[in-house]
């Protein structure tokens, strides 16, 4: 990873709404090896097909989710901002990213190690359930939005 990175300070875990309300012990466990990262505009946070080994929580900036269809121009399908989370492929085998994510503004993330997350979630089912309840609405909303985009409602 070329982005500048340093170990994540514990205070960062209370800065992101996705992590609000979790047991401190659980947060400390999933925070093992977590990094506080900065991304320059144009830099990719993830690339389609690459191993999904990090879970990025956006603290600042803006990230574009892009699809590369080689016969067409690259398409941005969604932009994410502070408070959003980036992706769930790290949880779904075979743990490969399904799209590109590119910083369009200077961006800062709290990045959790996927391997640590998977291990901790496996071991702490009650916390894992609460964690998934946080993640599921993100997935549901993006699926619903994708459906509306298929409808091309503004194009009629």
């Amino acid at each position, binding site marked *: 990873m070329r982005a500048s990175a340093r170990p994540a300070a514990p205070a960062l875990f209370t800065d992101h709404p996705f992590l609000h309300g979790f047991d401190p012990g659980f947060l400390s466990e999933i925070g093992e090896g977590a990094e506080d990262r900065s991304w320059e505009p144009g830099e990719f946070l993830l690339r389609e097909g690459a191993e999904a080994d990090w879970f990025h929580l956006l603290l600042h900036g*803006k990230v*574009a*989710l*892009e699809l590369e269809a080689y016969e067409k*121009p*690259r*398409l*941005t*399908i*969604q*932009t994410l*901002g502070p408070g959003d989370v980036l992706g769930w492929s790290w949880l779904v085998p075979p743990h490969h990213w399904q799209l590109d994510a590119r910083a*369009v503004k200077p961006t800062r993330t709290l990045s959790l190690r996927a391997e640590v997350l998977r291990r901790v979630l496996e071991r702490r089912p009650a916390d894992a359930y609460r964690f998934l309840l946080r993640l599921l609405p993100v997935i549901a*909303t993006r699926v619903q*939005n994708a459906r*509306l*985009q298929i*409808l*091309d*409602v*503004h*194009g*009629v």
Partner: protein
Amino acid sequence: MSMASDPLGPTGGESSPPGAFAPVPCVVVRRSVESSDTVTLALRPADGGDFPPFSAGQFNMLYRFGVGEVAVSLSGDPAAAGERVHTVRAAGKVSSAIVGVSVGDVLGVRGPFGAGWPIDETEGRDVVVVVGGLGIAPVRPALYELLRQRDRFGRLEVIYGARTPADILYYAELQRWRSRHDLRFQTTVDAAGRDWYGDVGLVTDRIPDLRFDPTQTVAFLCGPEVMMRRSAQSLEARGLRSDAIFVSMERNMKCALGQCGHCQFGASFICRDGPVLCYADVKPRWNVREL
């Protein structure tokens, strides 16, 4: 032949206002291209006369000689005397013929018709405007009205969703609005190329982050029905009451007089009782398929 009395009585004896029944010839004085299929036209009466006043959210029937007539919302400033502004997308035969006019051509105008945005409801409250696609056009007159009386209400939040950056209407004007400090104007598109640095996503995604006091807010929604439905649900989830939300509906208006039956939506004639309806009334009907 002697006719002692007219059995129609006082109401039936009235004539329709001029311009309601037959189109009034109007000259195209300005034509600006908004996108690949959409233009904005400014019209003046061909006889040099005046247009009747209109309120934000109303529509006119635009007629192209020998082709036909189509309902188009008024999208200019209600306070601008002398001309009427319409933004038209080439969708069918008639609208394509209207989009294809040149400056100097004559179109027929009937109207204005329908019920507009309840501007008075905004007094002392926050205002949220959520628009999608061509839905910005019927809302623009309301924005002019609101910005003219900016001190009469609280926050003004506008979210505008377009299909792609190339489909964004009123681009220059939106840039000016975006730079104002007394309104927050956010634009988002469904999809974009790399040359777009703005937001990509649906208007509904922005609703959780809007700043307003749910107990003292009125919302205007205009755009595709599915977008208005989702937006209204998101606003309700934020605590806004359904009777504080207003939606602009669309159906195939033919007569615009509440007489041909085409635009019925439950008990409402969209042309007469709408196009702006209160979401509290619309909500149960949106739950009925094929109404």
